[in-house]
């Protein structure tokens, strides 16, 4: 059944589904391959990944809520411009918030906080989901996608910090004799780690598909 614009409140199971969708089945990084730049650039330590994940989560939820709120007021022709302005406003808020909370984190993330504006996950959710759904559902969608992104950043940051620095969140793991694999902190390590995670995800999905439909598989 197709809901008329926000007249019908979504059932709990349906809301839950849009939440879980972003978290796992439609994970923005591993499945949709969106938001690559921050995913690669700031995941050289778990701390940076945490900060970036939280900042993006905040912007995503707020902009989804506001876009859903004004969705009937905005003319179609200027909708993208409106969405970008809404997102840019929240990014400015986050930018000043991080600066106030922790200067070292602010310095480590650098221009990438401001670059949340052009993270295609956020504009993508505004256009594909929040512009067509009621506020509550859009917030859940934002939470799901945001946490999915957060999870992906942690996956990358974890691998890169453990291999590249022999530590997790700054605590050494392997004792003094560990020779850090510095390559994983450098740009190539980012590409290789993400490629490896994508391989894990695609082979895992392919296996699940084979199990679900064994009759269709040839050879």
């Amino acid at each position, binding site marked *: 059944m197709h809901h008329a614009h926000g007249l019908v409140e979504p059932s709990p199971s349906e809301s839950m589904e849009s939440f879980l969708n972003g978290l796992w089945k439609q994970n923005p990084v591993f499945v949709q*391959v969106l938001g690559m730049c921050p995913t*690669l650039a700031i995941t050289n330590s778990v701390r940076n990944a945490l900060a970036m994940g939280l900042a993006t989560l905040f912007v995503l939820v707020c902009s989804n809520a506001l876009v859903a709120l004004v969705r009937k007021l905005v003319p179609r022709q200027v909708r993208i411009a409106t969405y970008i302005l809404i997102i840019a406003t929240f990014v400015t808020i986050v930018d000043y918030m991080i600066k106030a909370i922790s200067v070292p984190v602010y310095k480590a993330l650098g221009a990438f906080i401001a670059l949340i504006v*052009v993270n295609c996950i956020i504009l993508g959710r505004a256009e594909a989901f929040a512009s067509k759904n009621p506020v509550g559902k859009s917030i859940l969608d934002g939470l799901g996608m945001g946490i999915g992104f957060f999870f992906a950043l942690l996956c990358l940051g974890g691998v890169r910090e453990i291999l590249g620095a022999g530590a997790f969140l700054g605590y050494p793991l392997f004792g003094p004799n560990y020779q850090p694999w510095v390559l994983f902190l450098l740009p190539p390590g980012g590409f290789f780690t993400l490629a490896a995670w*994508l391989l894990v995800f695609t082979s895992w999905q392919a296996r699940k598909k084979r199990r679900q439909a064994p009759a269709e598989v040839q050879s």
Partner: protein
Amino acid sequence: MNESLGHIFLDSLLINNFVLSVFLGICPFIGVSGKLATAWRMGVSVIFVITVSSILAYGTNLLLVNFHAEYLRIITYIVIIASTVQMVEMFIKKTSPALFRALGIYLPLITTNCAVLGVALFQTAREYNFAQSVVFAIGSSAGFALALVIMAVIRERLELSDIPHTAKGTALVLMLAGILSLAFMGFAGMGQGG
């Protein structure tokens, strides 16, 4: 900041290549690098957009600093970029409809290419003067175009080779980008003398 112009150009083109070591503009790098013909056209339009928006952003930043309204920086920059892309789109449509059709959807997508906003933000953060900003914009966008073209050539050559099914697509592009990035790390020594 008084880096020489030549140093800024080399640094942004090769040593700190936008795609391969600063990680900006990865989405179009993965999306548009399938064919050489579209890759170089995309590269040229990005060079144009980045240069124009960098000049406009430089002027706007002077105004913002003058009125103590730096908190509006992100919002104004994104508006500048969106309107530059719109302008370029209309210009190309008018002068060369064939190129306009070839670029298709990728043209409006330059707005969300983080390399464009990245150039504007970096030139502000590093307090470059006008000449330095323009050289930085040209160097880094040419670096983006260079990475895009290299990747497109490699992908065209790999089209017929026998790749495991799971590795096809994005994972393969990322692995290739990793190897290219390793190669570009070799340029790091060049910056020491300047």
